[in-house]
């Protein structure tokens, strides 16, 4: 059995992270000592590593909860998990696309600023951002 500190160490997280996962319903101690200390078995270590790995793949804690439920469901099969993974990959691809657009927009702004000696009130990057804020505000009022 592991105490919370030891368990956290096994998955390279802090005890606070373990408590947070417990609060979110992703993990539970195997039992508690008479003094109220949490104790965990080796399944908890596997579960904790699973949560970390899934987080690194971009899954939110709510989605990890779904995956864990599927993992423990008698009726679920690997196709269900695959379907969740495909949905997540689609989400990530959309995010990548949005980030590429943002990066492209920043690239254009950087190109437009070719004189580093200009005073701040003549900075084309700040001017472009100001104008986009103004456009959004106007769009919001018009809508």
């Amino acid at each position, binding site marked *: 059995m592991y105490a919370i500190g030891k368990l956290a160490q096994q998955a390279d997280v802090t005890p606070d992270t373990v408590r947070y996962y417990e609060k979110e319903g992703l993990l539970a101690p195997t039992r508690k000592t008479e003094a109220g200390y949490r104790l965990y078995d080796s399944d908890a270590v596997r579960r904790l590593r699973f949560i970390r790995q899934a987080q690194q793949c971009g899954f939110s804690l709510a989605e990890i909860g779904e995956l864990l439920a599927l993992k423990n469901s008698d009726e679920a099969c690997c196709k269900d998990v695959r379907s969740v993974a495909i949905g997540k990959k*689609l989400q990530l691809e959309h995010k990548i696309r949005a980030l590429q657009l943002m990066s492209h927009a920043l690239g254009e702004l950087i190109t437009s600023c070719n004189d580093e000696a200009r005073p701040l009130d003549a900075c084309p990057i700040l001017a472009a951002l100001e104008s986009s804020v103004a456009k959004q505000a106007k769009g919001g009022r018009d809508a």
Partner: protein
Amino acid sequence: MLKVEVFSSPGCGKCAQARDVLKEVVESLGTDKVSWREVNILEEMDYAVDLGIMASPSIAIDGKLEFTSLPRASTLRAALLRRLE
């Protein structure tokens, strides 16, 4: 000609069954009027992202995302008939 594209991943038995029913709907409207294409979302991920597809299975009609899950046969039929009018 209307273009119906079904985005899903191979190996999904549940999708395959429902897809066959929808394919029959499309074919019943005339293959000269409506085309049917099954898109493997894993092979055409970029195209799926272009159309704003966030879930599998999904259906696009004429390059526009229309259903974010497989609709009933009658719903798809109605959506296609509206466009064919």
